């Protein structure tokens, strides 16, 4: 693995844990220069540093693909799991079932999540698994050199000029119809929008989906692509701007005058929606669906924290598991012992 220089500039700011942003970095990216995914990685690094999460309490998981390589590039002090193609949601589900105390972040791509892993992603949403799930969406299979993915828009052209004719799977619309409790879309080129979204997603108790349009500079950044930098910059409409105020941070930031609504998260932090279209309510699922349909049919790419519901129970509440992480329950509490077995067997006589 390529090593990064270890010299740290003395003036780098430290967070409450005494860690600089460099402490949240990982090893050097091996992706193509200019890859959108690297910008997402940088945003994740910043989000964790700002949230002051102890690195070793982070579990970062992924499947297979260019996007799934990126957990190596952030928070090297976290526990990581680069699993199998499309299977990260199940691995994350089991991990979260065993230890609810860690912060789970899953990095996936449009191939990993919308084709081979579509079923697992949908079911993780249904369980309202407590994790941040980032799709780095570029409309193309990069590692296998340029096949269309399931998120490619009709008419979008491949590098060789071939047009995609199958209708796309839109993870945002899908998640909304499945009952997802936190649905956002962003653009890798818009760090200002992405970092607060990541922070809010990490603070959300439940499944937080962020679909990040993240252009592939090698296979899908040409004229005719609908996932290129140029296209996304032109069509990106920030319908909601999100401001995330963590619990521990003093709420000194000036309250935006046009803030229409604010939502308190489970840990006491606050999400403030600002510059929202007048008829937009991020807590009204049907309204959001209708709004997105309308805007997307005009070729726009609406971004921001599009939907939020902090009232739905997450997986552990749904399955009634104990407050203590299962990995910390001592064996003595798990085994009923010989006397109970003796008694139980009276029913088998």
């Amino acid at each position, binding site marked *: 693995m390529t090593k990064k220089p270890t010299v740290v500039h003395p003036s780098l700011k430290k967070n409450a844990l005494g860690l600089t942003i460099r402490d949240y970095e990982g090893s050097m990216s091996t992706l193509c220069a200019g890859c959108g995914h690297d910008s997402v990685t940088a945003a994740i690094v910043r989000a964790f540093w700002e949230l002051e999460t102890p690195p*070793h309490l982070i579990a970062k998981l992924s499947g297979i693909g260019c996007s799934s390589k990126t957990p190596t590039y952030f928070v090297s002090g976290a526990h990581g799991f680069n699993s199998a193609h499309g299977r990260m949601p199940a691995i994350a589900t089991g991990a979260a079932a065993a230890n609810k105390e860690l912060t789970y972040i899953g990095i996936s791509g449009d191939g990993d999540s919308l084709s081979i892993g579509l079923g697992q992603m949908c079911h993780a949403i249904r369980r309202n698994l407590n994790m941040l799930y980032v799709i780095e969406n570029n409309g193309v299979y990069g590692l296998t050199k340029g096949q269309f993915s399931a998120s490619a828009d009709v008419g979008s052209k491949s590098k060789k000029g071939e047009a995609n004719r199958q209708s796309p799977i839109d993870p945002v619309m899908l998640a909304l119809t499945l009952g997802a409790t936190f649905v956002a879309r962003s653009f890798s080129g818009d760090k200002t929008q992405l970092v607060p979204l990541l922070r809010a997603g990490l603070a959300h108790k439940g499944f937080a989906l962020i679909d990040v349009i993240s252009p592939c500079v090698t296979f899908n950044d040409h004229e005719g692509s609908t996932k290129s930098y140029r296209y996304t910059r032109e069509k990106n409409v920030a319908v909601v701007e999100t401001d995330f105020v963590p619990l521990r941070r003093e709420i000194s930031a000036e309250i935006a005058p046009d803030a229409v609504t604010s939502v308190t998260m489970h840990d006491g932090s606050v999400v403030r929606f600002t510059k929202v279209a007048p008829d937009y309510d991020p807590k009204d699922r049907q309204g959001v669906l209708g709004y997105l349909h309308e805007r997307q049919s005009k070729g726009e790419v609406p971004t921001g924290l599009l939907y939020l519901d902090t009232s739905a129970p997450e997986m552990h509440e749904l399955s009634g598991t104990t407050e203590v992480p299962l990995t910390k329950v001592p064996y003595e509490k798990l085994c009923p012992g010989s006397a109970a077995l003796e008694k139980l067997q009276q029913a088998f006589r």
Partner: protein
Amino acid sequence: MHQEQQVRINDFALKLANVNGTGSASANGLLMQAIFRMGIPVSGKNLFPSNIQGLPTWYEVRVNKSGNTARAIEYDLMVAMNAETHARDIKEVKSGGWVLYDSSWPLPNSLLRPDVTFLGVPLAKLCNEAFAEPRERILMKNIAYAGVLCALLDIDMKVIDQLLLEKYGKKKALQDSNHKALRLGYDFAVENLDCPLPIRLQQMDATGAHILIDGNTATALGCLYAGATVAAWYPITPATSVMDAFKSLTDKFRKDPETGKKNVCILQAEDELAAIGMVIGAAWNGARAFTSTAGPGISLMGELIGLAYYAEIPAVIIDVQRTGPSTGMPTRTQQGDILSCAYASHGDTKHILLFPSNPNECFHFSVKAFDLAEKFQTPVMMLSDLDIGMNDWVTPKLVWDDGYRPDRGRVLSAEDLEKLEKFYRYSPADENHVAARSLPGVHAKGAFFTRGSGHNKLGGYTEIPDEYQEVVDRLAAKHKAAARFVPAPIIQIKEGAKIGVVSLGGCDPAVREGVELLAGQGIPCDYMRLRGFPFDTVVEDFLNGHDQNFIIEQNRDGQLRTLLVAETGVAKEKLKSLLVYGGFPLSARHVVDGITERVKGAAS
């Protein structure tokens, strides 16, 4: 006619032919349980269709005072309650045997046999007169024939009454109608038939130290006692009842009485791919986790079983085998997953397998599976089957050692990690070729990036041949080292035996009985029952120590034999297959006939 017949006590077999979905299962279970309570060794085999209602289903009961309770394939008494299968059912009765049928309608003459006694009881008529509700009439007909059998076989009515009381004590109306139906049949039989038959029961004291339990319930108990906290599964016959039982056991034993919260998380997954993924994720985080499945599930889990093998993550997989390939016959038994489990997944993979042969071993081996999975940081598969898993077996009472503590294998604590200068996941390895692992969240120094892609002995990504090989070679050595830790084979020696018999799992009762019968016929055989894979040297020694070995198993291709050929140094000419794979449990007759034929064939 039967007065002339010799009385045979506690040694006969009967078969009950029913239509599924009519409530016959509870009547048949009642009979089996009553015989067990009378202290008599008994077995019950449910031969049921892959269907909910309306298709033929059979239940076989074998009573044997010497404890030989493998499936009998000849029946002294047929309880012919399904007109649709009358023809073939009546054909299966032994000459000199009996057929009990519902004489509310006449039996066609074409079905009658001169060498069999037909016992007619107008069950439908009796029940129609006694009960008002149509559904009740159908259900109670079963209990009525149970009453007839009590009279014919001399089943202790006090025992039956007690069982009904235990079962329906809280539902007075149900208890009353069951009791009424039972008496209806019993009284009719006593008044109209020669009771009891020469085949009959007599109280014994052979089951006092036993319980009546199915293998899947015993497996679930094992998982409970092993301390499993995460279970993920997808419904599949015949494994579903493992998780059904685990759920009800955890509701009983893992629930905080005050908060109602549970020390377990049971996840019904979207498919088997997800189920094994959840197990791997949970075990990666340090929980004892398992899944239960059948052959189709093993096929689907293949990819991730390889991930767990290569990344060295414990996983316990309970495979309750059924008849394959493809959908196959989901409600019929087989031992068809031996090879697909031994080598599950792409690339070079080899797994630890456990072969329980009865519910008692299901209990203990499932605990063992967790210990081995964590000790060797690898998937462990316990291969049960439908016969063991879904049928009630008379099995020695389960005994738990309160001194047991889980073998969590080499796991570094926060203190251990603190002392380390630097943690490497796959180095250094111990004498069993296992390295210590760290668990997420325990200590900053334990942070590690788990990957299913090529890695070197320090855990770093690699595509360098030597570095890659070093790791997979250690994995092979690790698998080999596990041979000393899986349950040892059970070897039974016969004086002067030159023939070896090798078998596993649910074949055991039939093989044990068969070996005794063969010895009586002058063909002594030594018998080795395999209980785990990889094979220890004792396995090879046994095989080499015999001129010829018969490998008895329930699949078409001789999968155990193939595994023995591949994984021991024994000449394959020494290993001969004896295979029964139609989907019904093995009988001693298969063993005796199969070996006699081959031995005599070779001699002539």
